């Protein structure tokens, strides 16, 4: 006799599976896309959401943390907002629906909904691995986004803002982006909520940088205090390509931002700069994996976290250096300013090095405000609360200052200062 104990599904798991069943016939896709979706949902049914027993999710028990899933509401209304930097090109995704009419000149853009409809998207809808819950959920439900291509040699004079505005319900988007050889651009992937209603947002971005591409990609996440935000960015760096990835989390209740990269071209350089501003009841997780697959490549990762209230934060960072990736230079740092006794932060740096001639290092610190710095500012007449705010700001501002666009620096500084004022 064959006895199998079925795992009891949680409310959120049931809601996801039911939502899929309810949307059959409505979800976009040709035969290949629909069968890819079915496979993903079957996996979701079989495995459920990951728990802390799945290593990649050890500090973010998604099964326990994702309590409810808001019902998708195709009629929900959201409006575009002003761009972060005046004069930027803006392409909007409002409650999950993309608008490609404002694509900048010289950039090839196609709505992802079209790629789903004609099946071009089918090969995308796979899992990175059995623990890829974000890819699985997103692939099951994805409805729109943009496929973007910057042809060889394109240089964008102004930032391109991908503006994802969410009011309530669900949004599942994808952004496959190819940067041709020698391209240069600043792209802002901006997620924000314009209501207090709960949303579930999943978003997957796939970047390919060809030879010599020089790209700054900024992810600014400002979801509402009730929102779940599950996002992933994957990238592949070609020869001499440079990617500067800035990730700023300043919102959301349950947030996981995954970053998975491979460096496949010699001379390539990757920089990750992260700021996590965590307050209230948020649980925010940044999980990063990077493979240095070829010789002579470099990467640096600096993550700065500020925690207030009962916030929980996670940073997992794993750097793998392949056996023939000699002369790899990789440095990772995660610094946390813990400003509440009820907040906590888990940092898990990992290095897996299979080459023998490399320079790799990592460090994680958890600190309070430096009392000598505080005293010095006070000794010049700055009251304690103001001095503290200046020092917290300084802690994260060092990261922002690494951007090159002055207008963008100023806007981000304002966003950070406003956030700190609200939470300090």
């Amino acid at each position, binding site marked *: 006799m064959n006895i199998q104990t079925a795992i009891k599904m949680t409310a959120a798991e049931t809601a996801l599976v039911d939502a899929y069943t309810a949307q059959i016939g409505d979800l976009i896709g040709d035969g290949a896309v629909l069968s890819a979706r079915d496979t993903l949902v079957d996996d979701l049914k079989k495995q459920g959401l990951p728990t802390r027993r799945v290593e990649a999710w050890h500090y973010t028990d998604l099964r326990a943390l994702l309590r409810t899933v808001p019902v998708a509401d195709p009629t929900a209304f959201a409006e575009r907002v002003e761009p972060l930097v005046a004069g930027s090109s803006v392409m909007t995704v409002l409650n999950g629906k993309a608008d490609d009419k404002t694509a900048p000149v010289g950039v090839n853009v196609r709505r992802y909904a079209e790629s789903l409809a004609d099946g071009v998207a089918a090969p995308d809808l796979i899992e990175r691995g059995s623990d890829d819950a974000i890819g699985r959920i997103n692939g099951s439900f994805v409805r729109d986004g943009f496929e973007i291509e910057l042809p060889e040699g394109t240089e964008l004079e102004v930032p391109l803002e991908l503006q994802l505005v969410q009011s309530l319900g669900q949004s599942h988007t994808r952004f496959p982006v190819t940067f041709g050889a020698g391209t240069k651009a600043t792209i802002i992937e901006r997620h924000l909520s314009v209501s207090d209603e709960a949303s579930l947002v999943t978003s997957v971005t796939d970047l390919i940088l060809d030879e010599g591409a020089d790209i700054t990609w900024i992810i600014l996440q400002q979801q509402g205090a009730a929102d779940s935000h599950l996002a992933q960015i994957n990238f592949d760096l070609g020869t001499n390509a440079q990617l500067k990835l800035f990730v700023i989390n300043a919102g959301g209740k349950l947030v996981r931002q995954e970053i998975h990269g491979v460096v496949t071209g010699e001379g390539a350089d990757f920089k990750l700069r992260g700021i996590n501003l965590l307050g209230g009841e948020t649980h925010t997780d940044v999980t990063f994996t990077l493979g240095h697959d070829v010789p002579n490549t470099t990467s640096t990762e600096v993550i700065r976290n500020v925690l207030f209230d009962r916030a929980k934060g996670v940073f997992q960072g794993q750097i793998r250096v392949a056996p023939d990736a000699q002369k790899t230079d990789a440095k990772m740092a995660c610094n946390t300013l813990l400003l509440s006794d009820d907040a906590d932060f888990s940092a898990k740096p990992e290095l897996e090095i299979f080459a023998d001639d490399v320079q790799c290092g990592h460090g994680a610190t958890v600190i309070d405000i430096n009392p000598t*710095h505080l*005293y010095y500012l006070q000794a010049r007449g700055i009251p304690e609360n103001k001095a503290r705010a200046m*020092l917290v700001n300084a802690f994260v501002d060092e990261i922002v200052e690494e951007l090159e666009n002055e207008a963008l620096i100023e806007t981000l500084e304002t966003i950070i200062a406003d956030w700190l004022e609200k939470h300090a």
Partner: protein
Amino acid sequence: MLEIRNLHARIAEDGTEIIRGLNLTVKAGEVAAIMGPNGSGKSTLSYILSGRSDYEVTEGDILYNGESILELDPSERAAKGIFLAFQYPVEIPGVATMQFLKVALNEQRKFRGEAELSTPDFIRRVKEAAAKLQINPEMLKRPLNVGFSGGEKKRAEILQMALLEPKLCILDETDSGLDIDALKIVSDGVNALRSPDRAVIVITHYQRLLEYIVPDSVHVLYKGQVIKSGDKSLALDLEANGYADIIDAAAA
């Protein structure tokens, strides 16, 4: 202006007593030099006057313009006009020098019920004061004290002092790490601030600084007490003969 009465103070963390019954009076318009061997409590005294919380006053009082300041935190003391030029100015990455100066100046004005300075006004003042101290404007674009040489840090302290216009200036070994040219520039900066309503306390090891900033009184600190006071000739005497005689005399 300043009256220190039978002051006893210790390190808060381990209870080590550093200041043991110190008495000192400094009048408005006076420049008082405090000298003394290493470990006599000179820097500790400057920290205590500024309100650093690492030290606890266990006995005695510090009166500033007739009022005790023991209950005031460092920012309140600063806003009331007490300024300490640090021996080791602190580097604070991420805090822009100009932003720091502007916030400090305006917070002090706010405390005193004065209007904030407009940005053009502020910038003009900084430029003028920086030029007098031969401070390279590029330096002001950097984060506070970060990457400044020893001499640049000391000049930056005097710049802050010139901008904040305190009433009681305490210079803690401002001469250390300065070459002779820088020493002259810094001293000129201090002398420019001398006025009948302002007092200056100069803490130093060496007579050299006192050739440029000529004191009205000189006090020798030893084991947390003022063991001898005199006029500027006392500093010359110390330079020639060292502390031993005075210490022996005080012990006798």
